[in-house]
């Protein structure tokens, strides 16, 4: 059964003749446990789509269901509660709070839940361990590297153990090696059952997803590029490189999408 269902989503900014359609009638279904990449050029609407999935950007029309909950029928405060319970968000540019330490940043979502100090601490340490940040708990964001900041952002997103992780350009500010490490991290979380939806314009990162949705001019132009399709193509073309390079071919438009 589909976990996230977008039904004829439309998002317009402005009114009348000057209205701009950021999203123009997108339909999709994401299964529980999938790792979906959303790709597209700048201004294609991919971040807007992710924001909608994150219950932060109400569509002009259409509906978005997550786990059978119609997100935008909830009040603003209920959507805040929904984000806290169901979603983990990894923002572009990390968006860490500069005056909180690593562990405090990770524990931010826990500041408003009813749990004892020890339990919150244990949850934060588990998340830190999961992302490989043990030993850096008391450093400030200004004292850690870009890759570590991204890990902190991921840890903060998963500390509450949400079923869905939304990531907006998680490797946008990272070098190749660090990007690879972060993607491996996300891949590992997906292997554990977390549903991940990731916006990226990086072909290398897109290759980690099991399925890629391509957005252009607010419309979904390609969807459901499955890994087995990639592997069949790889076999057919006798390409030996591991699949991250295949993402270049996807972007080039030379791979079948069905």
């Amino acid at each position, binding site marked *: 059964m589909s976990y996230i269902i977008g039904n004829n989503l439309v998002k317009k900014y402005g009114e009348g003749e000057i209205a701009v359609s950021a999203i123009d009638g997108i339909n999709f279904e994401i299964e529980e446990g999938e790792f979906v990449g959303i790709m597209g050029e700048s201004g294609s609407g991919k971040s807007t789509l992710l924001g909608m999935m994150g219950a932060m950007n109400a569509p002009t029309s259409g509906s978005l269901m997550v786990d059978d909950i119609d997100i935008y029928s909830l009040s*603003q*405060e209920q959507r*805040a509660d929904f984000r*806290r319970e169901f*979603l983990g968000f990894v923002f572009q540019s990390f968006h860490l709070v500069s005056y909180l330490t690593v562990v405090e940043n990770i524990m931010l979502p826990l500041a408003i839940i009813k749990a004892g100090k020890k339990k919150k601490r244990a949850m934060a340490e588990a998340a830190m361990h999961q992302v490989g940040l043990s030993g850096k708990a008391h450093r400030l964001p200004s004292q850690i590297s870009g890759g570590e900041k991204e890990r902190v952002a991921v840890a903060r997103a998963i500390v509450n153990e949400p079923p869905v992780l939304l990531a907006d350009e998680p490797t946008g500010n990272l070098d190749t090696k660090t990007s690879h490490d972060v993607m491996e991290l996300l891949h590992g979380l997906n292997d554990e059952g977390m549903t991940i939806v990731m916006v990226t314009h990086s072909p290398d990162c897109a290759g980690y997803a099991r399925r890629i949705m391509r957005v252009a001019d607010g419309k979904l132009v390609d969807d459901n590029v499955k890994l087995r399709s990639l592997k069949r193509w790889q076999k057919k073309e006798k390409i030996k490189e591991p699949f991250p390079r295949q993402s270049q071919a996807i972007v080039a438009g030379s791979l079948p999408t069905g």
Partner: protein
Amino acid sequence: MTLKTISIKNLLRRKGKAGFILAGLVIGVSTVVGIMAFVDAMANDINHKLEKYGANILIVPRTENLALSYGGLALGGVSFEMKEIQEIELARVKTIKNARNVAALGPLVLGVVSVDSHKVLMAGVDFKAAEILKPWWHVQGAVPEENEVILGAEAARILNLSIDDKITIKDKKLVVSGVLQPTGSQDDQLIFTRLVTAQTIFNKSGKISMAEVAALCKDCPIDSMVKQISDVLPGAKVMAIQQIVKSRMETLAQFKKFSYGISGVILLIGSLVVLVTMMGSVRERTDEIGIFRAIGFRKGHIMKIIFMEASIVSGLAGIIGYFTGFGAARAALFIFTENHPGDVPFRFELAVGAVVAALMLGLISSAYPAFMASRLDPNEALRSL
């Protein structure tokens, strides 16, 4: 990790801004506390001084009125030919509810005597009570013993008498033991002697013509004292010397109104400082608030963070402001009351009031910034980068 952690950490991170808000509130609170403490102390000082300067309640026999003045004040009437008050009844004044507010009770026996063909008003007084009732008296010579008199300055001049001179009044030989320095009042024209001596001369043993009362009325209305004394002396007419009381109360009331007005303006300025600084702080924290909202903080959580920050700073400002104001009031009192510095008493209710007022001021001034912060759209806030 709690919302309080976020508030405290933010304050520690933005020490300058927090310090600015703290300074604004401390100045406001300390000024208000200083003014109120100073006014209180001055009021006590003024009351103390005014109460030292004579009677403010008169007890006279209930009589038909003839207009007569004493001390330049319209009393409503005294008739020497009518029934006097029994001296023994005067003791009942010490049984009234506000007996502790009676600083002095001075019986008087009044009568007209002849000295060398001059008619002079003679007053028999309790000289012990007169120390409180007439602190402006300065006697050249000595306070009279039995069969001695002191003369008012004008009386001494007119009668051509000086210390150690002898006079005879109604066959009683009396010695002048002293002369009052000029007072500028009716006392300059009188002869004063001990109460017992006057009662003997006028054949009014155990009786008095009137009594003066110095009432300490800081904590009780003068009217209440007058009524209480009237109740225990039904045969007497008890009157407050309204002019003294009214002018005293009016002076204090004007002073207090002025100080409250100044305090209000200063508090308003303090609250504006908080409002403007908090608004600036909220604008700077758009990204941070966007993150909070995006990860699931409700509007109430955001407001709580802002209010907590305001509470911490305001509470601290209240405490610091109280002690600063208290110290300033003490310094000011020392400067402005050279003869009788008095003291600024510690008032628990003023201390608590200062902290509570500072908290309320901080919270009210932060309400709009907190509301604006809570309304930030997370999507817009995060896109702003």
